[in-house]
């Protein structure tokens, strides 16, 4: 990563007509691990789409998101964002991290955290100006966090902290928003607010990719789902992707309907043979 890639020096315009994201034959493996985290992943996301990225633990969802956010170096394959190679323009892509990747006790105020979204435009040795402060204030108000602006981030609840992270993304004014498991352990009002904001973003023509384990929200809030398990297992509308077959393949389970009672149970499969029966929830989507 060169020093020049950070900050306002990005002048690469979006190439008109190009999709928001084009990934071709992306393969990635960590260090000495023999098994690759991602294997020959190819997909295209059009501008204005709201995409759910689903798959079991260890499926490579975070890896894919980090590669798109240029947080990991490309090993094999290509990623194009609005017609430009990944890493060409960092302020076009915003990333909301998993909760555990942030030091919440660090002594920064809510306003300072949201201002970090503007750092993408500022770069070395430049200080926030009026435009930046206004963008931060607007983002805080949009997320209902203006009254908390001077609090230390660690004093807030988990839901409030997630709102601040989304406010930071709004302040960055990115075209492609990536969120890694943003819904875990969130209160319902905050989830609803996040979906509302994501809806507004896509209505403005921005593109949103969200990884999640919460399959229940898919039919209502997403117009596309990508089922990832090291490679793309299925990709299409939510109804197309959420089938018994893909679930069975990705989670190693089979849904069974009892012919007499109609109750649905789950069979754990090992090498395609059932080993135990149990309730669906919890085991599957934790």
């Amino acid at each position: 990563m060169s020093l020049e890639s950070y900050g306002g020096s990005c002048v690469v315009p979006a190439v008109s007509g190009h999709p928001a994201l084009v990934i071709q034959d992306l393969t990635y493996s960590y260090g000495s691990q023999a098994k690759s985290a991602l294997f020959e992943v190819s997909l295209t996301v059009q501008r204005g789409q709201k995409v759910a990225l689903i798959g079991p633990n260890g499926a490579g969802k975070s890896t894919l998101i980090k590669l798109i956010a240029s947080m990991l170096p490309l090993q094999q394959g290509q990623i194009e964002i609005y017609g430009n190679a990944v890493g060409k323009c960092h302020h076009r892509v915003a990333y909301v991290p998993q909760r555990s990747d942030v030091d919440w006790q660090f002594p920064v105020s809510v306003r300072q955290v949201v201002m970090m979204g503007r750092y993408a435009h500022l770069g070395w040795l430049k200080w926030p100006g009026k435009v930046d402060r206004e963008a931060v204030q607007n983002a805080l108000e949009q997320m209902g966090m203006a009254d908390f602006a001077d609090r230390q981030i660690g004093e807030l609840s988990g839901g409030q902290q997630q709102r601040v992270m989304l406010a930071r993304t709004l302040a960055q004014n990115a075209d492609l928003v990536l969120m890694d498991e943003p819904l875990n352990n969130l209160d319902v009002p905050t989830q609803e607010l996040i979906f509302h904001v994501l809806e507004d973003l896509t209505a403005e023509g921005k593109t949103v990719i969200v990884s999640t384990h919460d399959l229940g929200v898919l039919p209502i809030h997403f117009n596309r789902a990508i089922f990832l398990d090291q490679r793309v297992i299925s990709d299409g509308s939510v109804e197309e992707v959420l089938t018994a077959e893909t679930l069975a393949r990705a989670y190693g389970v089979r849904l069974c309907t009892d012919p007499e009672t109609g109750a649905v149970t789950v069979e754990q499969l090992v090498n395609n043979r059932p080993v135990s029966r149990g309730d669906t929830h919890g085991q599957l989507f934790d």
Partner: protein
Amino acid sequence: MVSFLIDPFSLSFMQRGLVGGILIGMTCAVLGAFVVWRGMAFIGDAMAHTVLPGIVIAFLNGASLFVGALIAGIVTAVGIGWFSKDGQVREDSAIGIMFSGLFALGIALLSRVNSYQDLSHILFGNVLGVSWGDIAAITVVLIIVGAGVALFYKELVVTSFDPGHARAIGLSPATVRYGLLILLALAVVSGIQAVGVVMVVSLLVTPAATASLLTKRLDQVIVLGAGLSVLGTVTGLLASFHLDIATGPVIVLTLTGFFILTFLFAPKQGWLMRLMDGDLPRRAN
């Protein structure tokens, strides 16, 4: 009472000690805020020990001690990063290896300098022995450290709080960390003159940790930490003058005393207030 406070500083070595100590305390406290909040206390302590061979080699060759220590500090920073890069060696192990290995090299080289006095000054510091030349060098270090922190403040903060976001906006946390380690090496070299290799981590950690119990804003942690450090230095100098105790340990003990008092009696986060509020077991991360 006034003469108790003022008279000692009519002596020129006390004046130099005062000016030097204040500058050193401020330098270390400014960086200390980041050392504390990024969990770098161990690497700070290691850095203090690993610069020893650099200082000794420079001393033996009549070169600048600062330059010698700085080179050793950079070798430490790069070495730790290199050993732990691929995750084959954990970072704290890499620090431990560099720490003991280079310190041993320093001690081995020192044994060729046939003077225990030199050894004890490097190990335990002697702020009353600083010359005006040393003070000039210490001032330059303070300016570099202060300017470094001021100019790269937002990068230091964002890489500390959310390194993922930093990488996503094209800012390499590793680059910022190397820069911080170089500043740390500079501050350590200053600090060694006041309290020596063995105790310099106290100047880095204790004032900033004390300030962090009193405020939740990083800029205030820096300013308050620097203030506490200056207060500790002055107290240390006076106590050592009137009680005839070595200055370095008294400075460290004073700073430790501030920390313990603050830990017990701080208005919001102090042990006593938390005990009265009945929420002692809290403060999970």
